[in-house]
């Protein structure tokens, strides 16, 4: 699995297709986050914007390898693992990007509540932001895995489905991503740092299930 992970990582890095989602994320942040804003609000925004980026990275990683090359890898390690590797690489890339952005936002934001009355400690706020970013990276990976091959094969259906699902997972009540992000936003109003462990557990479970489904289907659908 280590060799497979390295292969897929190298494939993503060298293909340079990671660049557009990274730039999109940077633009999201440049528009929505400015230095001196309340820290928890900015961290909530940072986490929420990561979800579609993670979904896009999954799409890139899964479609990056030509079908014939995937066949060679599938024969060697089995189609399930051959599909798991790009999903893990996308999750790792999204989580790394989210962590970097969270650290940056933690450093440049104002450590106060939304009404600037209560002080919010920087370090716990940053940790909470990291967890929220991880929730969104996980859920974005799940969205990506469910809206690309082998579940949706035609690009014309897959991309609108991915965008819509990514949007819905940020706004619909009951979604772990929405719970994590709104936890930060309400925490900012009251000046308390939330600990989004329940959303994290929910996101991890859901992503594991989505990944298992995608990997199981990878040997059953045509390329």
């Amino acid at each position, binding site marked *: 699995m280590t060799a497979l992970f*390295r292969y897929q990582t*190298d*494939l993503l890095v060298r293909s340079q297709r990671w660049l557009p989602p990274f730039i999109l994320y940077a633009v999201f942040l440049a528009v929505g986050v400015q230095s001196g804003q309340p820290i928890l609000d900015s961290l909530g925004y940072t986490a929420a914007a990561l979800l579609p980026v993670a979904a896009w990275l999954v799409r890139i990683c899964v479609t990056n390898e030509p079908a014939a090359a995937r*066949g060679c890898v*599938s*024969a060697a*390690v089995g*189609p399930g693992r051959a599909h798991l590797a790009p999903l893990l690489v996308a999750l790792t890339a999204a989580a790394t990007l989210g962590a970097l952005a969270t650290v940056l936002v933690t450093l440049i934001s104002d450590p106060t509540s939304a009404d600037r009355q209560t002080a919010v400690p920087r370090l716990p706020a940053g940790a909470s932001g990291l967890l929220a970013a991880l929730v969104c990276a996980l859920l974005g990976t799940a969205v990506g895995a469910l809206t690309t091959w082998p579940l949706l094969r035609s690009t014309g259906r897959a991309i609108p489905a991915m965008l819509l699902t990514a949007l819905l997972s940020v706004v619909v009540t009951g979604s772990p991503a929405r719970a994590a992000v709104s936890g930060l936003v309400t925490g900012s109003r009251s000046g308390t740092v939330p600990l989004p462990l329940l959303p994290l557990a929910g996101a991890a479970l859901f992503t594991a299930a989505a990944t298992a489904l995608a990997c199981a289907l990878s*040997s059953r659908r045509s390329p």
Partner: protein
Amino acid sequence: MQRDLRLDNVGRRYGLRGPWVLRAVNLAIAPGTLTRVEGANGTGKSTLLRLLAGIDAPTEGRITGRPRTAYVPERFPSALPFTAVGYLTHLGTVHGLSRASATRAAHACLERFGAAAYARTPMAQLSKGSSQKVAVAQALLAEPEFLVLDEAWTGLDEDARAELERAVAERTAVGASVVFVDHDPSRLAGVPDVICTVRDGGVNRRTEHPTSPAAGPRTVVVAQGPRGGALPAETAGLPLTTLEETTAGTYRITVPASHSDVLLRALLMSRPPWHVVAVGSEETP
């Protein structure tokens, strides 16, 4: 001891309501055997090979006993952002080699197929034939126990085609099984142990008789061994075309050209070793 790869009542269709491409296929691939898969275009040869290689799961039935497998697709894309050796090193480690031995095997494999000059060339700049050589190399570099070749010869130059035939002979000689599809009927002619014909969603299996006249080029080896003895046990699995004892202890052995190296190795490595008197290609009658 390696087991047979078994297909029990295997069926495959694409999509939930698609037509059955293959149905009720029962097949066993024994270690050390060479199997040729035949059939007209679109009959499901590639589907059968993908099932055998484990890339696709059967819609019904089960496949058991898969050894370490390698697969060569019919068309290999060059749209990979690696150099040839970079890609092969990655695939070698995916096949379970260490990084250092994967790089060594990658260079050796490219050299073997006459592509050493392209080792550092980006895959995107390779010609179709050269990228097919990379596809063949990725399958051979980890010495798989089961090799699936889907028209792997297509696009290769003449030297590389003969080299691939010899590589197939080598794999089967060390107990690996090989399954291949090729549209050239003279490809490894007379060598396969089993011929499978795919027709109307079924697979018809027949064992090839080793005595059948081989159409391809042949090599004659004259060798001396113990008087009144038989050929060494290592040659047991070889598809010998003819074998005659010209004088006491001197044998004239004819094999398909692809298997001459394997025969010589078997003769020279046997204990006590045989003495090779002459090797030549058989004059066409």
